[in-house]
């Protein structure tokens, strides 16, 4: 675990992995999402590769969060939200009748824009997921799970001596890493992040970006960001959303250097958004 942490972020990997053939983790076909009568997503098709960071960019209100929330069925919790189309993870239909969203959410973790630790101790924050899913049987096992998750989230060194302190007492950046640790502790396959750095200062942001780059060895990561620079730094794939449609998906390098659609290039060069 520790050797993972000592790694500096390796920008070179971005280019290297973009050429690699990746197996598709999540596949979306013809996804339409409605909030009541209002349609928020139109015919979205997308393949999200495993062990890669995929960034969603686009002007606000274009449906990035909506699509992200389709992948762990958090839209189910919104009254009046309706999802049409097919979304599969490893070939398994996420909206199949028999599929329990609770199980799905254990496999697909989520990090929100505003850090939302429970107003409990740091330890309890991380232990909550494993506890409800029965992932640790003894106290020693749980201690190990908590320590591993905190180490993976790069927070262990900062909080090891105050695990019983409230999670809400940490700084914003630490809280966001705590929330990531909390998601990791459930051993998910996918981690969804909705603008995870928009409430953080540049230093904390850099720390999270470093972390995302480390996590991509083990997880399929999807990140919504309003910062083009961030998308360019952390992702290997980028999808550009505009008015509820996916305008362009591709390798991050290609999207940023040689976009096909004029709307993409307009957005990237800052002409709107």
């Amino acid at each position, binding site marked *: 675990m520790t050797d993972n942490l000592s790694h500096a972020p390796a920008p070179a990997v971005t280019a290297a992995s973009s050429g690699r053939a990746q197996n598709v983790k999540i596949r979306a076909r013809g996804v339409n999402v409605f909030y009541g009568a209002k349609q928020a997503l139109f015919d979205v098709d997308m393949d999200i590769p495993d062990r890669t960071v995929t960034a969603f960019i686009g002007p606000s209100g274009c449906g990035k969060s909506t699509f992200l929330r389709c992948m762990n069925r958090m839209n189910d919790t919104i009254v009046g939200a309706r999802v049409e189309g097919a979304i599969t993870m490893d070939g398994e239909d996420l909206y199949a009748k028999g599929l329990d969203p609770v199980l799905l*959410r*254990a496999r697909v*973790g989520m990090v929100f824009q*505003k850090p939302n630790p429970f*107003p409990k101790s740091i330890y309890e924050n991380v232990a*909550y997921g494993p506890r409800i899913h029965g992932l640790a049987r003894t106290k020693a096992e749980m201690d190990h799970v908590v320590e591993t998750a905190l180490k993976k989230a790069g927070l262990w060194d900062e909080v090891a001596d105050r695990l019983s302190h409230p999670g809400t007492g940490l700084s914003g950046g630490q809280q966001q890493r705590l929330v990531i640790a909390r998601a990791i502790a459930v051993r998910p396959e996918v981690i969804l992040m909705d603008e995870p750095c928009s409430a953080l200062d540049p230093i904390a942001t850099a720390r999270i970006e470093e972390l995302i780059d480390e996590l991509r060895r083990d997880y399929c990561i999807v990140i919504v960001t309003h910062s083009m620079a961030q998308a360019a730094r952390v992702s290997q794939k980028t999808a550009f959303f505009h008015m509820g449609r996916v305008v362009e998906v591709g390798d991050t390098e290609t999207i940023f250097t040689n976009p096909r659609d004029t709307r993409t290039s307009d957005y990237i060069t800052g002409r709107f958004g």
Partner: protein
Amino acid sequence: MTDARQAPSSRALIERSLKRRNAAERRFRLYGVLAICVALGFLALLLGRIIQQGHSAFVAHEMSVSVPLDPSRIDRSYPAGANYDLMAAEQVGALLGISPTDEAALTEVREILSPDVGLQLGEQVRDDPALIGQTITIHAPLGDDADQYLKGEINRETLEAQRVLTDRQLDWIDRLEARGVISSALNTGLFTRGDSTQAELAGLLGAIVGSALMLLVTAAVALPIGLLAAVWLEEFAPKGRLTDFIEVNINNLAAVPSIVYGLLGLAVFINTLGLPRASPLVGGLVLALMALPTVIIATRSSLRAVPPSIREAALALGASKTQAVFGHVVPLAMPGVMTGAIIALAHALGETAPLLMIGMISFVPGVAEGFTSAASTLPTQIFIWENAAERAFHERTAAAIIVLLAFMILMNAAAIFLRRRFERRW
């Protein structure tokens, strides 16, 4: 240049309007302060009057009498039949130089003693017949009229015929006090005795126990039902016509006059279900019905105050809806729920009208033994005492109000403490 020319004039305009605005602000502050002063004034008047009337009930005069238990006057096979009151009166009479044969005088002496003297003597003899033949000393409250006289409530200047005590009774009381037979002490009987027809023996214990038992029933019924109803409505119920309808009606119920709940309790709990009249069980159930809307409304608003990000966090980790609600949302809402519940209970504690409807208007001596025996409660005790003729009961009425207010202030303080202690900033 144009700007420079216009600047002073707009500044002057603003200054002029500023003067007006400042004056308006001062005026409104003054109104506010005045309103507060009027409100506090009324409160002070109310409290002052009650304390002024009731404080004297917390001390009482008592008398010690030594009574020789003459074996010839007590039938060993039936010791309760002896006239202990007369035996005590003779002893007091002896102190005052009254002959044991002067029956008229002795009757008047008995009037300044409390029947408690005779009761205590009878009890001691019953418990220990070996006492017969010995002399025992009894401490007992003074009769209520004598107590009122010593507290300055009965005036010697009033015509004798218009007073409850005769001139010579007043003299005797003065002499007994001068001899140290009568002394003034903290009126512990007020808290250790139940209600009695004798004012000097009437205490609040029965009412306090009755109120406590009743509030227990109220809390045990209203809190879990209110909490669950609110959680369901707020977190689980599909939003729609039905929940809107329920919501409107809960708000309506909160506004229903309390006497209506009393009528309902009388019809349903007593007449239909056959539960015992005037019992803490029925009283508690009626008050629970009354408290429910308040508990539900308070719970819902504190559930709403829990940020949605906490629900999302739990759900996104794979918690089921129930786990998210009961593991995170409800615990965070709990301080608010408890605050609302305590305020609802404090309100229930003072509620009178519905209790009168279910029969708590009748005289209940002693202390309720359980949830189903007849009981009096603090507010109904106040109501009953207020209607009594004796002057001493008026003093006790005010004292009972002070006790009731003290309990309410305690409960409200607990609510404020909870709110302060567990207040959260997100």
